[in-house]
């Protein structure tokens, strides 16, 4: 395969990389935050994901494909982070009381959601976030997580059930 001049210019030009980062950084950081519940961790994780994808990604003509790779990398890094270290409970106990300073009018609900999300297993949390924040279909969620469709359905279902318990509807 011979890269065209235009393609190489796009792929390797300073502006190309910079534009990719600027186009996706905000979404990536917010996704990372929902998956980790921690701003610093989200920043580190997203930076690592960008570094990995920019370092390997070679089909820059397709910006949607870039986000697909980036999102999958963010999810994988977050689940790996919690699974590998096995410190999720300890981390929650230590971090949750000091979390964000939300706006006064919705302080309680945000806190409860964040806490509820962090009580989910990393895979459950990722599945729920991809389905209801990224608005992916179950099939796309399965592809993004690299797991069977049936597993996505059961994982999301159990995750939602747990969130309902943690976030009861307010009358």
């Amino acid at each position: 395969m011979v890269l065209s001049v235009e393609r190489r210019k796009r792929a390797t030009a300073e502006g190309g990389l910079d534009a990719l980062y600027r186009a996706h950084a905000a979404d990536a950081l917010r996704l990372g935050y929902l998956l980790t519940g921690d701003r610093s961790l989200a920043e580190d994780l997203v930076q690592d994901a960008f570094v990995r994808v920019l370092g390997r990604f070679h089909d820059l003509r397709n910006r949607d494909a870039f986000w697909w790779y980036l999102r999958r990398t963010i999810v994988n890094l977050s689940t790996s982070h919690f699974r590998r270290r096995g410190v999720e409970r300890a981390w929650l106990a230590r971090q949750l009381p000091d979390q964000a300073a939300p706006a006064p009018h919705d302080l309680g609900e945000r806190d409860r959601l964040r806490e509820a999300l962090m009580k989910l297993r990393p895979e459950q949390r990722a599945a729920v976030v991809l389905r209801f924040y990224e608005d992916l279909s179950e099939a796309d969620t399965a592809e993004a997580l690299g797991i069977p469709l049936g597993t996505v359905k059961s994982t999301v279902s159990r995750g939602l059930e747990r969130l309902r318990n943690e976030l009861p509807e307010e009358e």
Partner: protein
Amino acid sequence: MDTRLRNLLHDLATEMPVDVEGSAPRTLRKARGRRILTAGAGVVVAVAFVVVSVSLFRFADDPTTPAVSGPNLATFAGLWPETDAQALAETQAAVDEGHMPLRTTADGTASLFATNLLGWEAADVSWQATGTTGSDLPRAAVVLAISNRSFGAFVPRITIELRQLGVTGPNGVWSVVGVSDPPLPYPALIELEEVTQVVPGIVHVTGRVSDLYDGAPALEAHVFDGATLEPSLGSARYELADRTFGLDLDVSATPDGRATLLLTMPDAVGQSLGGVLVSVETPVRVEEPQPTVRVEGVPPEVAATARGIYDAAGAGDVEGLREFLDPNTFAYNFDDGSDPIPAWRQDPSVLDLMVAVLELPAAAPRAIEGYGTFTIWPYLIDSDFDALTERERADLASLGYTEGDIQLMIDGGHGYQGPRLAIDETGLWRNFMTVGE
């Protein structure tokens, strides 16, 4: 619940502060750095070896080509593996005998360059030949752009110009005559701006690296003269602090005042991401002739004896000197008809003096009444000490005489008063004097 959860998630996500402007430089820098550090490890991307037409190539006559001072490349254009016509002829002879088949193709030679000088794995060197070879040119020439499969598409290709400098055609040996950054509009990894020998033995190299690689750790410069980086004529590692570089290389002398500079950007596993190969000027090494017995113009029988004496004395073989003399006719320091061997055995340093004397030219043969025709070393016995040349003074110094000693000889008015050695016309060694007459 689904809608409420969506709204809550989006609301929660807004807690994440987003400072794209602040984080972009750091992240992009790390991303580029990672590309350098992991370049040898990873992604298989099919690209590479592209033949570019000769007309695009920008080595020789493009005004934007870096100013590279040095000897006239017309003398021998090859930079690698051979750097002179004799070496090329030897390689061609080996190829004619069936050796080194890769050297008979441009892509094979380019692959050898990548594996030998850039440290690439042979399996990673990929190519696609789409251009034309110069079969209709006076010298077959081709320009190739090679790249490493494992590096990925971010790493620019390296452009190599090759020519058949001797035999052309299917059996002719190809030589690398230039390696540079790709011709525009391809991005350049290493751009040379100046390569100048600022003073003899110091080559100043400046340039810049691509802005794609500001995370790259270093450049390496190697000056060599031949197929391998060793023996090195000079090398340096330049830690990149920004996109520019400038380094001074200590370069050893070469016989022809010319060497090859290879500039590389090695990754974490030692494979170079880019390469530039140019000719550089070096100091000219004047080959001092190895000291030997001086028998030019000397009769054959005399020369044979002189060589024998020189070899035996040089080896410290006192007994070996015996075969060249007859004790009944030999004179050692005017002691006619005596055996000098016992005295030389007691003081073998005399043999060093014989060697020094024989390393100077001989005087013209002369007839010695009652003895025959002698050839006498050194030629200084005939020198005019009132008009000594620099050469003669240097030769006197080689025998251990100081300027003061020389002045004494001049003042004495008797000419050369140093050691001398005589062999007659039959090849018989007749005398050795350690002092003057």
